[in-house]
């Protein structure tokens, strides 16, 4: 042992502070044993204990009449009628993916899928939200390719379609990529089960893969500290995914639930048996005994601590009545899944760990869960905010707008994501009726007329400039994406990716973001039913952009009414829902400031500054109501929200996906070049591009009056070019190649 490690007390090596160590001693009334220390260190880690977020998260709205299960379980569950319910959850796997992108992302998918079938739901679809650094750098390319293929390989093998997602490239993620995986599942309401241990004397059954040394302290420790050189040493703890075993585990668990053989079910994620067992006991208000000598091992010579905290993948923990055990074993056997009784439910209120006959640890269950320490770090607005929010001088805009547009549409953040989704099976289960390439994916629900819309959205750059507004926009954009397909937003699952929460500046970002999310969700009346917090996304002391990602699900009563992004028929009118961004009488500086935080400013002028666009929640609701009502009345041929890249990019996307042109006349003062540029590229919120038949314009106007939303007719679908006033004139065919092949040429 080297000198340094000998001098550092063991608790500190495990990441506990001296006051935390003392608190453990007080709880136990003695010095903790090795096993106990290992267990506390993980349960009180940020990842399991939510020490820096628990109090803030309470601000989020989480209830509504159809919410069957809010935050606190493996996944949130909502009632969608006709006896069916949907489980939904998102989770980060940022740190494991930064160490080993393929396996990190693959096991991220594996983990979130287990959360879903742990609720009794059959996994129905997955999404992902990704962030990397500059994709022209070899390491970033390697991470990006590895993550995409890891997500694909795991999900494809399981037969769970990956139907949507988002990816952005910003320098701030260079040392710390983000990989957020989201899954939803469907269940008959009667099959809903929770990870709430019950029934004194019931047995605890471990199902799935054998336990090895992989990922000892992996996810929880990795996710609870910043990246630095010592990470190298942690490498061997990489966990490898085995999607084949997971697939069998899904089938076995759902069959066990259909046969009513389980009293509780939970997955094993970070901190393995430790967190699963203690959280199940804690929710049920009972005690639990675990005998590590019963756990089937993959490697010889594992210590009780190692067995308790191993993060071997593809394992589930169930609580079973003794008389059911043989039937449970029979079902597992059919699917080739080992199932072993490793403990029992007790009335002690303690988690007692045995190694055969010998008791090697005994801890009050709630001391591991509810009583984990809480820290409230004083939030202080970071220095950088004032600096970056200032808008610099008005630059000289490039004259050639066609070239500018070409550059934008071929840039990493705006180009087609086809390279990604072609590697994902997005059709298995034959429910995907709006494929990737629209604002949200839409699934039909077999046996009903209904459909589900799914999206995940975040905007790190906006949140960096203004975390409150940026997060509100993330919620609004997700809702807008759901609405653009004709669905009504139902629920949010959120993944909060931030830097080191012990720093007051990060604490400020985090609180502002939650305030923004809470206010927006309350306004739209969309409950947050599950989520995940990922802190310590820093490398060498530098934090990522604060990046809350918003996963959202919406419901269509009639899936036949779904609407997609692409323009359809020549002659259709093109309408802008919402308003033009500029108003008469503004100075050039005022107009220019509307480009704050935009893709245009970043891609063309390499500037990340200003304030993100403003969001007026009432205006947003009215715009959404107009779009949604029009779709429900069946009068829209296409709908697409305006977001990254602004009006012109949204128009071009509808052309590119539809393989058809458009002619647009914008009402702007011809002589003001600043105004034109800003109108084309600003990212003002609460807007959609929709198209419809001329005969339906009257009806559309009626709806707009009813809901009080603005719109204007701006052009017509047709031809093979996008023409905007005399400023833009590009061939759709010629734009298609750079747009479609941008990622290919980046990674090849």
């Amino acid at each position, binding site marked *: 042992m080297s000198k340094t490690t000998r001098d550092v007390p063991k608790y500190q090596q495990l990441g506990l502070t001296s006051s935390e160590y003392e608190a453990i001693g007080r709880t136990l009334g003695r010095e903790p044993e090795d096993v106990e220390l290992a267990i506390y260190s993980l349960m009180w880690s940020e990842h399991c204990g939510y020490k820096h977020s628990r109090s803030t998260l309470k601000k989020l709205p989480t209830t509504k009449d159809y919410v069957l299960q809010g935050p606190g379980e493996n996944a949130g569950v909502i009632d969608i009628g006709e006896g069916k319910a949907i489980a939904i959850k998102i989770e980060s796997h940022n740190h494991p993916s930064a160490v080993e992108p393929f396996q990190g992302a693959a096991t991220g998918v594996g983990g979130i899928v287990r959360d879903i079938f742990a609720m009794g739901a059959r996994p129905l679809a997955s999404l992902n939200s990704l962030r990397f650094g500059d994709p022209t750098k070899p390491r970033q390319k390697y991470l990006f390719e590895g993550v995409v293929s890891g997500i694909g390989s795991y999900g494809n*093998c399981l037969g769970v379609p990956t139907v949507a997602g988002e990816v952005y490239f910003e320098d701030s993620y260079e040392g710390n990529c983000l990989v957020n995986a989201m899954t939803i599942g469907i269940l008959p309401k009667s099959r809903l089960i929770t990870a709430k241990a019950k029934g004194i004397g019931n047995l605890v059954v471990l199902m799935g893969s054998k336990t090895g040394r992989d990922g000892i302290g992996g996810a929880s420790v990795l996710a609870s500290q910043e990246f630095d050189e010592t990470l190298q040493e942690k490498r061997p703890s990489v966990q490898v995914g085995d999607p084949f075993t997971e*697939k069998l585990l899904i089938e076995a668990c759902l069959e066990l639930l259909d046969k009513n053989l389980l009293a509780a079910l939970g997955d094993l994620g970070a901190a393995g048996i430790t967190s699963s067992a203690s959280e199940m006991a804690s929710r049920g208000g009972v005690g639990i005994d675990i005998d590590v000598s019963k756990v089937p091992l993959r490697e010889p010579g594992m210590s009780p601590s190692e067995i308790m905290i191993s993060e071997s993948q593809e394992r589930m923990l169930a609580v079973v009545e003794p008389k059911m055990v043989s039937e449970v074993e029979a079902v597992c056997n059919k699917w*080739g899944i080992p199932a072993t009784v490793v403990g029992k439910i007790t009335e002690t209120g303690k988690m007692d760990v045995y190694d055969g006959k010998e008791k090697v640890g005994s801890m009050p269950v709630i001391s591991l869960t509810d009583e984990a320490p809480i820290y409230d770090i004083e939030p202080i607005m970071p220095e950088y905010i004032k600096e970056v929010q200032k808008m610099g001088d008005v630059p000289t805009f490039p004259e050639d707008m066609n070239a500018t547009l070409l550059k934008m549409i071929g840039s990493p953040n705006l180009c087609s994501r086809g390279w990604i989704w*072609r*590697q994902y099976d997005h059709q*298995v289960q034959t429910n995907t*009726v709006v494929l990737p390439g629209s604002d949200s994916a839409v699934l*039909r629900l077999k046996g009903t007329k209904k459909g589900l819309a799914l999206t995940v959205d975040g905007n790190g750059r906006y949140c960096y400039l203004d975390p409150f507004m940026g997060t509100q926009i993330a919620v609004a954009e997700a809702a807008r994406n759901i609405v653009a397909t004709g669905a009504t937003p139902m629920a949010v699952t959120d993944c909060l990716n931030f830097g080191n929460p012990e720093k007051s500046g990060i604490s400020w970002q985090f609180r502002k973001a939650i305030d923004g999310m809470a206010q927006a969700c309350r306004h739209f009346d969309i409950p947050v039913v599950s989520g995940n917090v990922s802190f310590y996304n820093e490398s060498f002391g530098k934090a990522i952009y604060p990046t809350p990602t918003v996963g959202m699900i919406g419901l269509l009563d009639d899936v036949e009414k779904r609407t997609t992004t692409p323009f359809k028929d020549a002659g259709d009118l093109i309408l802008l829902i919402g308003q033009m961004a500029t108003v008469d009488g503004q100075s050039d500086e005022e107009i220019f400031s509307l480009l704050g935080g935009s893709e245009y400013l970043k891609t063309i002028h390499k500037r990340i500054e200003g304030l993100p666009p403003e969001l007026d929640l009432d205006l947003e609701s009215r715009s959404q109501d107009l779009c949604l009502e029009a779709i429900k009345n069946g009068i829209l041929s296409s709908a697409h929200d305006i977001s990254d890249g602004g009006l012109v990019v949204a128009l071009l996307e509808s052309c590119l996906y539809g393989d058809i042109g458009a002619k647009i006349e914008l009402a702007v003062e011809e002589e003001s070049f600043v105004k034109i540029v800003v109108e084309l590229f600003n990212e003002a919120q609460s807007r959609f591009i929709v198209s419809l038949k001329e005969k339906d314009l009257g009806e559309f106007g009626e709806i707009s009056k009813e809901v009080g939303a603005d719109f204007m007719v701006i052009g017509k679908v047709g031809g093979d070019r996008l023409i905007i006033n005399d400023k833009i004139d590009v061939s759709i065919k010629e734009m298609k190649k750079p747009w479609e092949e941008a990622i290919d040429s980046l990674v090849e």
Partner: protein
Amino acid sequence: MKAGVVIFPGSNCETDTYDALNYLGFNTEYIWHRDSSLHKVDLVILPGGFSYGDYLRCGAVARFSEIMEEISRFADSGGLVIGICNGFQILLEAGLLPGAMLHNKSLKFICQTVNLRVENNTLPFTNQCGAGEILRIPINHYEGNYFIDDEGLKELEDNSQVVLRYVDENGEATADAAPNGALANIAGLTNKSGNVFGLMPHPERAVEEILGSVDGAKLFLSAKISKEAVS
């Protein structure tokens, strides 16, 4: 007509196939890989998925399943067998169809809809298609780069065993039209006697308007009609 969809550990298109067949009016049953009988079905379908995780090689382990012996006997006696994607790979590994699959030439998984030209419309799987008709059906695989030696290829072509070929929008079997690099653009083929059919595309994903194409239905319906004509 009674169809059986075989479930191997790791199959994941069995439900899709089952739903598609029922939608098309078949009377469909699942067959478990450890069953020793085919439940008197008229058509056996080996669905897509990742049997045994596709570890080692696709289909390499599944071919030893108990049910495969029955399927061999069934095929030998002229019974209709369709292997879709992983099912095709299993049939190749089992030697019920000639050739083998290699990694896609891009070394990437590919999920997209392709154009397929019907090369032989006299089979029990294609009699509802026109000669040279172009079908639009999704593919979804990592190992669909079909290979067979020169002699084998000649035999396939001579016997009109090639059923489907990847083609471009103009119906030409150009090299670029096979996204996976398949030899001679082969997407689907039969055995010599024309009763065992393997194909990489997923016809069960193209049987309803809402899924974007109904071209896959033609392949299943062909089997149904040819069976009804016999009985």
